[in-house]
């Protein structure tokens, strides 16, 4: 036993020594000639070189060295939700140079003075962004953000378990015929959103009675639900375990790729539904703003932007992406139709249905209601 243990320890030590060598480069102490860029993004939200794709982070490091003659080490960290990111950043617990939150969270951070104004001279590629995505509520003067992806929430259903005639609107998520087969979001904002869109309530209302109505709707849905899920929805839909779910448009294609025999996943947009934009911005704690801006600019460059759009399966606000012949071919006709459902009135639609930053009082009320949804 003693020997076993010592051998294990020795191996662990060796592993750590190797790790130490590998990690040595990114210690701030060793940053003599090396710049460090800390990027904070959603999990699985950047093309990372898998399946022969473009490795965005490595390519940026390479490009930067050749363009500016200086080494950059990108620390790429991930978060699970806007709120997670906000909790860490606002407490001053962590410091990042680039973050990519969603619209309503950007509005909140801007309001609280957590964001820096961008110097667009360092981001010439921002010209690639379609005008539809400029001047939106979360950044009316285009000071803080450059959009990264956008998307629309839709309903995914299994044609082998659900009648096509029922697949209309938000009602499908409340259809008693499919009791025990329905998936709802496991986060308060999106879950209440589904109920509010269904009831025709403004999702940004501060009227508590409206929130109560949405709450009753979620309670009414309870006996019909399979469960409250986030990423579990992939497995549950792919295997036919659940028949109806609500998620972001691009993710439908990921599920489609992996669906089991005997499962026939379909997708449609209810009306109204949620539009979201995730945008790159620079938080106040940024240590090297110019470098961060160059990174943002790089992300807007055709190669990186196309690779990321293909990887995330989300729609891109970048003109060099959605007009790119290779990209259109790679995605296929169906995906293009679903991901880019008529871009012309995007701004107006977005303004109507997107989540806004809610006052703290409303947020607290929502969270309390949510706890009740979860316990009952």
């Amino acid at each position: 036993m003693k020997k076993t243990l010592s051998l294990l320890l020795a191996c662990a030590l060796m592993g750590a020594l190797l790790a130490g060598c590998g990690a040595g480069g990114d210690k701030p102490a060793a940053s003599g000639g090396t710049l460090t860029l800390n990027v904070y993004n959603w999990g699985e939200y950047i093309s990372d070189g898998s399946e022969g794709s473009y490795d965005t982070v490595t390519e940026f490091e390479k490009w930067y060295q050749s363009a500016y003659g200086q080494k950059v080490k990108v620390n790429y960290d991930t978060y699970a939700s806007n709120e997670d990111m906000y909790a860490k950043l606002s407490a001053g617990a962590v410091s990042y140079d680039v973050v990519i939150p969603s619209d309503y969270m950007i509005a909140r951070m801007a309001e609280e003075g957590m964001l820096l104004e961008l110097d667009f001279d360092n981001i010439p590629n921002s010209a690639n962004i379609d005008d539809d995505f400029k001047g939106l509520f979360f950044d009316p003067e285009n000071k803080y953000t450059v959009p990264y992806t956008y998307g629309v929430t839709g309903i995914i259903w299994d044609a082998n378990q659900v009648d096509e005639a029922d697949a209309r609107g938000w009602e499908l998520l409340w259809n008693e015929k499919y009791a025990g087969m329905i998936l709802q979001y496991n986060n308060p904002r999106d879950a209440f959103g589904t109920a509010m869109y269904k009831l025709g309530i403004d999702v940004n209302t501060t009227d508590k009675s409206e929130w109560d109505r949405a709450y009753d709707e979620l309670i009414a849905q309870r006996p019909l639900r399979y469960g409250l899920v986030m990423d579990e929805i992939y497995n549950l839909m792919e295997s036919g375990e659940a028949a109806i779910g609500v998620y972001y448009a691009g993710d439908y294609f990921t599920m489609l790729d992996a669906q089991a025999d005997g499962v026939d996943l379909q997708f449609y947009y209810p009306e109204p539904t949620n539009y979201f934009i995730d945008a790159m911005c620079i938080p106040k704690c940024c240590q090297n703003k110019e470098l961060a801006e160059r990174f943002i600019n790089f992300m807007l460059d055709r190669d990186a932007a196309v690779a990321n759009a293909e990887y995330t399966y989300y729609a891109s606000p970048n003109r060099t992406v959605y007009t790119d012949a290779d990209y259109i071919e790679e995605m296929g006709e169906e995906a293009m139709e679903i991901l880019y459902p008529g871009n012309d009135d995007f701004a107006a639609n977005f303004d109507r249905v997107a989540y806004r930053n809610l006052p703290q009082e409303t947020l607290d009320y929502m969270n309390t209601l949510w706890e009740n949804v979860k316990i009952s």
Partner: protein
Amino acid sequence: MNADAAALRARARRTQWALLAPYSLWSVLFIVVPLVFVAYYAFTDNAFAFTTEHFVRFFTATSSTDSGEVRTYLLIFGRSLKLAVISTVICLLLGYPLAYIMSRAKPRAQKIMMTLIMIPMWMNFLIRTYAWMTILQDTGILNGFLSLLGLGRVHIIGTEGAVVIGMVYDYLPYMVLPIYSILAKLDVRLIEAARDLGCNGVSVLRRVIWPLSLPGVLSGITMVLIPSVSTFYISQKLGSGKFFLIGDAIEGQYVANNLHFAAAMAFILMVVLLVCMALMKYLTNRQVNGGAKA
């Protein structure tokens, strides 16, 4: 000679301090002070003014469910305790016999079993929990297996059962290891003596082995109960998000940026657990001592 002895004693005292000082300092800085912070946050509002509103909220907040008005947080807390206690009891029922069998096996078999128990702990627990989802789904491996045997299907995922299975799975090693390490060291002569004095198998177990292994059982219970009360990943994944436990509530409040209320819940949880543990320790001590006297 006297001076020498004094010098020696002084030296011993210095060594003693050198040995204890780092740990004492560390404990104060990183164990005691952080708990003071929890208490501080628990008793203050966002402007750091004194308040007990979080505690009032914890004990009085209500919500209406099918079974009428309930106290929200007390219900959550009660449910967490219930699931944790069930898991702990199951872990004990499975873990004690296993530890016993292990301790009586040949040295080589002991070693193999010991490592087999350790191996899962070396693989990420999030991933292992994720794999359980694939097993327990209605269309999952378990049901495929059962229907292959013609036993019909069971619906487990999203029930309390699934959460308990997850907890038992993740924390069983923590029950087995401490019990095993005590049983393995047990003096075989004691058992033989008991046998010679006319004890049969069951009473040897009850009157000799069990009392002697109580400290191991106690630390096993602690190491299973504590993490299962506070887990928030297992309930999210295996409970299909339907079982809201105290860990979920604390994490939810942290994410919703209500640090003070999160701290208050943490504080209450901590106090309750400390009291439980102290009580259990007291009872075991009494039983161990009482057993010795009898």
